[in-house]
Each structure stands twice: as structure tokens, then as C-alpha cells.
């Protein structure tokens, strides 16, 4: 379980362009479930995901991950938790151009010191599972959008994280690809992984795979109006 207590996040504090992205969030997110943060763009769902994923620190408030306080951890330690616990699928996939699919998949494992061979084998089997093993040797920029996303998914899974965070995963997919993605997420769910998704795509929000939907607006959680 992840617990958030009165979380606020302010950008550019003290400057004219000061902007409060989150305004006092209290929330509990269950593990072993698929949770969706829904809301219009600018509602703070991406900021919330980055806080949950130990990518940034809240300006005030605290976050506990399975009883462990992670708010005050310096980057050096937060990054360790992040690497071991979270896998990220970004909205724009954010693959490194110019290197192969396989290398892209392996990137998050580089700092762990796990042997090259075992990481490679794992990456290949992940790509195999996602049906793009044949593209392993290709450069990522030659791939279609759906394929790129599957590389991003494989990359998120390389360190075998317990929690997968996906930001607007269907933004660039057509409906059939989006449904295929939901199937993949369903598979993770059955494996016992936690999935946190930020999106406003009804296809996902209404999907039976999703266990819980949290609605957000203007940096606050709003009651279920659905």
C-alpha cells in the first residue's frame, strides 16, 4: 500500500511563475491492483505519478511505501528504490534514439551490476513475450508507434519491478492497439504487479481490467462523478 498525507508540490517557488501543481493530496493506493488517475491535462496527475515513483520530492507532506517513508530520502537513495520497485512507461515512450531495441530494453539494468548475459537473456525473453523479438537488433527510430511502446514496456519490466507506472499510455495508439495494451496490463495484473496509470482515455477508464479510478482536477482529488 502507498499512503500519501497532505502532499503539495510547488514549482518555481518564490518566483513570479510560481505554480502549485498539487494542493494537499491525501490518498491510499492499494498494491496488487490497477489504479487509474484520471483528469484533464494540468490536473496534476503526472506530477502525482512522479511523486509516487520517487522521481521527485513533494514540497510538503509525506509518502509511505509499504510503511517506509520515502519523502525525505535524498536522490541517491530514492533512485535505488525507484530502480528496484518501479518500472516507467512514458507518454512519448522516451526511447534513446540511435541504439537498438535490445540496448534500449537493457538500459535500466546497467547501473544494477547484474551480469550482462542474464540481463540480455531477460530482455530477449521480454521482447519475445511482447512479440517484437524479431526487431531486437533494429534501431528504435525505425519502429512503428505500437512497437516503440512495446519496447518501452519491455524496458519498464527489465528490473522486474513490483509497480508499473504508465503516463498516458494510449495517447498515441489507435483503439485496437490500445485494447492490446490493456490485455498486456491484464497479464501483469494476473502476475501480481501493481499498475498505476495516468490518463483520460475512456477506453482505459471503463475497462474491466481497472480496479480503481481516482479523479483529479486542479491539483486536488475530486469525488467520483462517473
Amino acid at each position, binding site marked *: 500500500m502507498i499512503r500519501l498525507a497532505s502532499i503539495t508540490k510547488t514549482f518555481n*517557488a518564490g518566483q513570479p511563475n510560481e505554480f502549485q501543481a498539487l494542493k494537499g493530496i491525501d490518498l491510499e493506493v492499494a498494491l496488487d491492483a490497477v489504479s487509474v488517475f484520471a483528469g484533464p491535462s494540468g490536473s496534476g496527475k503526472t506530477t502525482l505519478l512522479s511523486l509516487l515513483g520517487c522521481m521527485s*520530492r513533494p*514540497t*510538503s507532506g509525506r509518502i509511505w511505501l509499504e510503511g517506509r517513508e520515502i519523502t*525525505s530520502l535524498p*536522490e541517491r537513495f530514492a533512485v535505488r528504490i525507484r530502480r528496484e520497485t518501479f518500472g516507467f512507461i512514458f507518454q512519448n515512450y522516451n526511447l534513446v534514439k540511435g541504439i537498438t531495441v535490445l540496448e534500449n530494453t537493457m538500459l535500466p539494468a546497467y547501473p544494477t551490476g547484474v551480469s550482462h548475459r542474464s540481463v540480455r537473456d531477460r530482455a530477449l525473453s521480454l521482447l519475445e513475450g511482447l512479440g517484437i523479438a524479431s526487431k531486437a537488433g533494429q534501431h528504435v527510430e525505425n519502429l512503428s508507434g505500437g512497437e516503440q511502446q512495446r519496447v518501452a514496456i519491455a524496458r519498464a519490466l527489465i528490473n522486474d519491478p513490483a509497480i508499473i507506472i504508465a503516463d498516458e499510455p494510449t495517447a498515441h495508439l489507435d483503439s485496437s492497439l490500445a485494447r492490446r495494451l490493456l490485455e498486456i496490463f491484464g497479464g501483469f495484473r494476473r502476475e501480481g504487479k501493481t499498475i498505476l496509470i495516468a490518463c483520460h482515455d475512456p477506453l482505459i477508464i471503463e475497462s474491466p481490467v481497472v480496479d480503481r479510478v481516482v479523479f483529479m482536477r486542479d491539483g486536488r482529488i475530486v469525488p467520483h462523478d462517473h
Partner: protein
Amino acid sequence: MIINPAIIALVGGSLLITAFALYALATALRILRHWDIRSGSEGQLALERKTYLISTIFAYLLGFELFSLFLFVFTAEHMHGLFVGAMCAAGSLGVNDYGYPTLILKTVTFMFCGVWVIVNHTDNRCSDYPLIRPKYRLLILLTVLMGLGTFLQTGYFAGLRADVITSCCGTLFSGDTESIAAGIAGLPAGATRIAFYLTVILTLRVGIHVLVTGRGAGAFGLLAGMTTVVSLIALISFIAPYYYELPTHHCPFCLLQEDYNYIGYPLYLSLFTAGVTGAGTGVLGLLKGPPSLEAVIPSLQRRLCLFSMAGFAIFTLMATWPMVFGDFVLGS
């Protein structure tokens, strides 16, 4: 003033090193003033990021300091032909009053730099940065040492005057260079030998105590520091003559030459490693802090202590080797 590539490299390198140390120090002062680990503000985040920069800079500086120490001795050795009466580096360093102080300061700076890197490493292992203040205060001292070292070294090179055939008189320089080394060389070999083996044995004994019980690290650090100094004295007094197989040759620098199979490098490296890690053990033993710190110190301390003991043991073995297996006997 003598200009040659090595001097340009040393003076230029030292200036650069000092400039970076000063830059790091300015950052460190800001950290000392504004540090607040509880805050998640952007200012605090920026400061935390600065710590990476300072760590990186000083990790490099540690390596470069060691390197420049050897290069300095090398350069003195290279130049000895330019001075009347200088037979090797020992003579070149004695040419003016800056030579030996520079060497000593460089060694001390390297030791401090090593201790700083150890403390920094310890601090980085704790999530609440318990040592941030002591460590950056130590940085002030370190920067001052580096600045002073640069000053002395520049003074040394600037004050050099090659004894060449100059305009008005073709000849006649008389040279009797006196040096600290000469004083140490005069120490009775028997007494220094006893002192050397006693301190080494004592250090190793206390080291075992630290390894077994985890206590007595402070004493070990103190002893390790002492043993390093005694070992250096012993090196000049009786270890070097055994390697040279010449009772009058005490030079601590000629050991670095090819003629003696570069034996000086393993000797000095093992001794410096032992000294730095030993002092590091002691410093860690003196540190008090929150539980996070107490949690990481013992294992680190044991490892450092082990390194230090291994260093002293290797040094002693190498020092004893020619006495046992060589034909040469140093008369009393």
C-alpha cells in the same frame, strides 16, 4: 626559475587543482549555510545536487594529488644534474628552502584528501547526510592545504637557479646541500629498527582488536598515523641502505629508480594506502552521529582497518626482505 615541461605541468596542474578546490569550497560554504535536510524545497534539492559535484571533484583531486606527488619527486630527480652537489632528488629538493616543505605538504595533503574521500563515502551511505557539516568543514582545511602547497611549489620552482656556466665566471660553485634527510639518515639504525618493528606489531595487534571487537578504532588510527611517520623515518634510516646495499646511501627517492627495480612504488603505495585507510579508520571511530551513521560505520571501519593492516604488513615484508635474503649487512 627553470622552465621545463614537467615544471609547467606541475605548476599549471597545481593552479588548476587549487582553483577547483576553491570552487568546491565556495559551494561547500553555501551548503554549510543553507543546508536543511528536512526541506523539500528547490533550494535544498539544488544543494544536494551540488554534493555530487564536490564528491566528483575531490575524487579526481585525490588521484591527481597522489600523481603530482610522484611527479614532483620525479622532476626533482630529473633536475639533479643542474645543481652542483646534488646526486639525486634529495639534493635538488635541498636547493632552496621550499623543496622539502613542498614535499611534506604534498604528502599531508594527499593523506587529508584520502581521509576526506573516506568520510564522504561514509556520509553518502547514510540517507540523512549526518556528516555534511564536519565533512565540509574539513574541506576548508583541505583547500587551505592545497593552496599552501601550490604556493610552496611555485616558490620552489621560481627559486631554482641552474648552476650553468654564466656570463662572468666560468667556474666554481661549491655545493654542500643540507637536508632533513641528512638528519634522519644520521639516526642510529638499531634504535629506529626496534621502533619501526614495535610500532608495526603494536598497530597490527590493535588492528586485530578492532577487527574482532569493533572497538579501539581511534587508537588504531593514531597508531597508524604514527607508524606511517616511523616507517618513513625507518625507510631513510635503514631500509633504503639495504636496498642500495650501501651503508651511506639513505636517499628515499632513488628507490623509485629503474636501478632498484622501481621497488619504491610498491613500498610507498602500500605505506600510503595503509596510512590513509588507517587514519580513515580512526576518524570514523571518532565520529558520532544518528543511528543511520552508526549502522554503516562498523562494516566500513572493519574493511578500512583490514586494508590498513594489509598495507603495513606488505610494507614491512618488503622492508624486511633484503635484510633476510640479501647478502648485505648494515653495520651498527
